């Protein structure tokens, strides 16, 4: 008003300014700890981390699945519009008991009741990981990543849907095969899977011709990475144990 129009004033609305403002709005506060003013080293720019520290979260929110997703997977369920575009394009949605977008809705409420429903759903096991959803999501919500974390959480809490037993068994058999032989040995793996699930006759149609076509070998594939990979699995397991006493 009283000031002349100067070039310096243009920086008031320089292209990056509103971004910071949006951020402040999003995180629910525009206050900055006074420390930022006095401490020289912190400078003038506000890093997200610093922001988080001055944003007071309720204690219950801190332990929610939503918080965990944000922490380990950088997936912020609050970003989701509930527009359903992910569900609309999901190849597995038809089979799912809870639509992918609804999984996120269940996490948005941060209520234990809803979180339980997400962890016990079949959907987390039916997600193929095809990444169609995140390729189209207007808010870039990494749903497949959320599904990964939910699956692992569901296994850790031992609440995985029983109807998914066979899928879990398949994944376990597969990883087991890698752990033992460094590579996947189909015959052994499928055998393991069948033992774990009792689906002894499934796929009987295809198997004989697979042998005939030379597609399935009876002996484990070569390769000397066997022991090394076994050790990797062991170290990963040890690290996991350490982190959750």
């Amino acid at each position, binding site marked *: 008003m009283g000031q002349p129009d100067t070039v310096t004033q243009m920086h008031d609305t320089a292209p990056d300014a509103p971004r910071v403002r949006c951020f402040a709005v999003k995180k629910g506060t525009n206050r900055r700890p006074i420390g930022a003013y006095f401490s020289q080293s912190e400078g003038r720019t506000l890093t997200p981390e610093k922001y988080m520290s001055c944003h007071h979260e309720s204690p219950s929110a801190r332990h929610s699945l939503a918080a965990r997703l944000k922490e380990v997977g950088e997936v912020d369920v609050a970003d989701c519009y509930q527009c359903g575009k992910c569900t609309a394009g999901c190849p597995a949605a038809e*089979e799912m008991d809870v639509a992918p977008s609804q999984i996120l809705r269940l996490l948005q409420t941060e209520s234990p009741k809803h979180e339980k429903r997400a962890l016990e759903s079949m959907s987390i096991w039916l997600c193929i990981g095809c*990444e169609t959803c995140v*390729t189209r999501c207007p808010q870039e919500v990494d749903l497949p990543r959320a599904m990964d974390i939910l699956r692992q959480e569901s296994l850790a809490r031992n609440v995985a849907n029983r109807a998914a037993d066979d899928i879990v068994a398949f994944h376990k058999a597969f990883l087991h095969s*890698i752990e033992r032989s460094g590579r996947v040995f189909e015959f052994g793996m499928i055998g393991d899977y069948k033992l774990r699930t009792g689906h002894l006759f499934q796929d009987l149609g295809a198997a004989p011709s697979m042998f005939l076509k030379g597609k399935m070998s009876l002996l484990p594939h070569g390769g000397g990475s066997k022991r090394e990979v076994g050790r*990797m699995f062991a170290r990963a397991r040890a690290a996991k144990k350490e982190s959750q006493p």
Partner: protein
Amino acid sequence: MRVGYYPGCSLTGTSREFDESVRSVARALEIDLAEVPEWNCCGSSPAHMIDTTMSIALPANVLLKAKRAGLAEVLTPCAACYSRLLMGKHEIETKPATRAQVERVLGCPPGSLDELPKVLNVIEFLAQIPETIAAKVTSKFEHTVACYYGCLLVRPPKVTRFDRTEDPVEMDKLVALVGGKTIDWSFKTECCGASFSISRTSVVGRLSSKIMQDATRRHAEAIVVSCPMCHSNLDLRRREINRRMEKPTLIPVLFITQVIGLALGLSEKRLGLKRHFVPVKLPAKTLPAQVVS
């Protein structure tokens, strides 16, 4: 020309013909494939599904071995392996905490995971040498085919390098390069059911039949893929697919390297064409010669 080569488990088993055709084509193009020594499985979707740490550590180990063998680039024909290797590398490059964790699992000194080799899929790789390929074409691939890219080559677009996520054209260009024609269709990147091949065959049947339906409706003589999972879903699961089709179809599913191999005049045997469940019978030349040029 020498390039690192990571066949991955499928190419040593269920998709042996992909491996055979890659190697034969490479030989014909005078490319030396240096297999990553003592490679291990990339972890595929199971690791990705239930063990995040291993889903990064396993590919990291492969790339570390390639790096130690002095390979700057690793050709990874299998789309699933390619995706895992690329994603693993991306995670390591963008997240320092993940990198440290993986270094511990691998038991390698810090810094070992710097500058891992570049991961190339077979389409990217061949697209780099169009002149070499064109020069060696002996019998043009005069067929109209549908190029099917699937999920893992193109998604997520932030990490993969395809610029048209929903309508990629790189494979179509390769087919055109060896004299073929490709159809413009709607299912290039729709999911086929991928890793549910064994545990949820019905899902695969439903999804793959839609893909088959669109390709046949638009008169494709074959489907061309670059992923062993797509191949086995569309080929091995054909009975499941045909059960859901208005009209059962017997159009074959070829790997892109088999298409190129045929144009280079390589034998059916060397390209592993006999290993398919749906027999590879392509109609006699359908294109008038001038269209090809």
